[in-house]
């Protein structure tokens, strides 16, 4: 096991190196100048631009730029071009909000996905199943920004509900519960839009997994023993269908970070997606490289953890 972990860690580092290399070149080859002032600013002279390029090593050949960026990134010295703050601090600053949003979305898609999926599997082939299936596909087919706009207009125009940011600004709440509920709402609104697709995917996944499990021999045995159908269904089949779901969560991470861009923008939510999107627009190369690197590292770590956990949980799996 230790050998396996060490080998995978080493492989991950090699992989990370290549990821950082590829992402660096894609990012820096993208046309655009990262000057923090408007490019068409008549006040800014050539001299100022030169000073700026030197400051961020933009005057060096690409391979040297890569060297500088990776050295600074690994020593934590890498600074954003936009505001010259360390990029790791900028990423860390978004972490709480991003985690809240993504955990909210995850909780919603898992719980509602489970509900719909199990319901579908219970009535497989009958009309409740057909209805939930179609519903699930409607959910997947909805463009997220479209729903966000319709929802935003509806909530604001017909309910004057505050929807922007992480909490209502300009109000003093009377007690802690209200403060909590206010924050809860500001997380759950974008999270539910983010979760719409997730609910659908999870419900399809669980439904398929349940139907599969129900065909297993031990379920037949349980039924043959005369166990109550509900007990068979909920106690035996369900428990065994959920397990693969948990390990799959790790794979959701990059999609969640990237997928929230549009929704974070619409709801002025200070998450990681907006950081990346703004960095793309501003050609803030260091931030983008760091963001790609950190995400990739997290995913690789997540994958490794999932594999290890799987081996710990399931004695049949041996790690070599």
């Amino acid at each position, binding site marked *: 096991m230790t050998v396996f972990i060490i080998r995978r860690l080493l*492989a991950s580092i090699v*992989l990370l190196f*290549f*990821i950082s290399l*590829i*992402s660096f070149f*894609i*990012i820096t*080859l*993208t*046309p*655009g100048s990262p000057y923090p002032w408007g490019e068409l600013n008549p006040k800014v002279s050539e001299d100022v631009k030169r000073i700026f390029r030197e400051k961020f090593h933009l005057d060096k050949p690409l391979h040297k730029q890569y060297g500088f960026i990776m050295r600074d990134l690994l020593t934590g010295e890498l600074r954003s071009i936009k505001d010259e703050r360390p990029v790791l601090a900028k990423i860390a600053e978004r972490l709480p909000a991003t985690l809240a949003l993504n955990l909210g979305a995850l909780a919603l898609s898992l719980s509602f996905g489970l509900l719909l999926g199990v319901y579908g599997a219970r009535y497989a*082939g009958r009309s409740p199943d*057909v209805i939930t*299936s*179609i519903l699930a*596909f*409607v959910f*997947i*087919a*909805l*463009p*997220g*920004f*479209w729903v966000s*706009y*319709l929802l935003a*207009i509806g909530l604001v125009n017909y309910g004057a509900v505050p929807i922007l940011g992480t909490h209502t600004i300009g109000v003093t709440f009377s007690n802690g519960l209200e403060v909590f509920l206010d924050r809860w709402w500001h997380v759950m609104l974008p999270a539910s839009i983010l979760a719409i697709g997730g609910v659908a995917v999870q419900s399809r996944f669980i439904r398929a997994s349940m*139907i*599969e499990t129900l*065909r297993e021999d031990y379920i037949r045995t349980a039924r043959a023993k005369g166990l109550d159908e509900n007990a068979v269904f909920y106690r035996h089949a369900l428990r065994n269908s959920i397990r693969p779901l948990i390990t799959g969560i790790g*794979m959701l991470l*990059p*999609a969640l*970070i*990237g*997928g929230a*861009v*549009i929704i974070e923008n619409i709801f002025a939510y200070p998450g990681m*997606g907006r950081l*990346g*999107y703004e960095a*793309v627009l501003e050609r803030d190369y260091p931030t*983008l490289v760091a*963001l*790609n690197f950190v*995400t*990739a590292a997290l*995913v*690789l770590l997540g*994958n490794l953890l999932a594999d290890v956990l799987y081996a710990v949980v399931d004695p049949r799996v041996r790690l070599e």
Partner: protein
Amino acid sequence: MITTTPEPLEAAAASPTARSLRRFRANKTGLLALGMVCVLAVIAVTFFVLDTLGIPWPMDPDTTNLERKLLPPNPVNWLGTDNLGRDVFSRLLNGAYISLTVGFVAVSVSLSIGVTVGAVAGYFGKWVDNLIMRIVDAVMCFPTFFLILTAVALVGPSIFNIIIVIGLVSWTGTARLVRAEFLTLRESAYVQAARALGQRGPKIIFRHMLPNAAAPILVTAVLGVPEAILAEAGLSFLGFGVQPPQATWGNIIADGKTYILDAWWLILFPGLAILIAALSFYLTGDALRQAVETRSERQ
């Protein structure tokens, strides 16, 4: 070879394809969705032809008419007009073929890559498989959306480039699927037999293994189309999609979002169009999947 086929007896009655077809025909939702897909295809082809011939019907989607700007739906402009007085209905119909082209071609791109990579990995196994799957892992590590944004900025937002970029980032799922299929198939009796007879890799892959993996690949393809359409719409929304004046469903919404409080019809109808198209493809794909799934027949 017939004598060695390990198929159950009922197989004699009909080929697997025929059985799948029969099952598909029994699925009313799937049929309806397939019908809708066909309607969309007809619209797309019709307007592609009309556009190529230069016949403006019902109206020219690019002709502005400033006196008639931002009109709500009315007898002349069924779905209203946009900020330059262009007919939304005409733009929607003309946008259909661009959006569907994006969907289909992007899927073809991602399928070609995904199938090739997956097949090679699955067929050869061992270190080849290991290496390829690590690369797939690496690609999956990228936050796809940023990758698309940067790539589009890098190569420019032409229709062609957008198709390629969407295709290039969405092949990993197919690759994994095909690899898994191939890992199973390579152990099957007839592949072993073909190998024993001295047939070479490419021939085995294309002649024997790929046809047997066709069904799941087809399903992935159909399910991939709406994803590409939605991806283009999302890119358009952020200004990275196909650029106006060329109309796509995505950029009609993107252009219209500025006027959303004053002209709801500019985003409602194209949004519905995307929803209906995506839904039709998803339901068709799902019905197909159910029809070709071998295990469900035992139910």
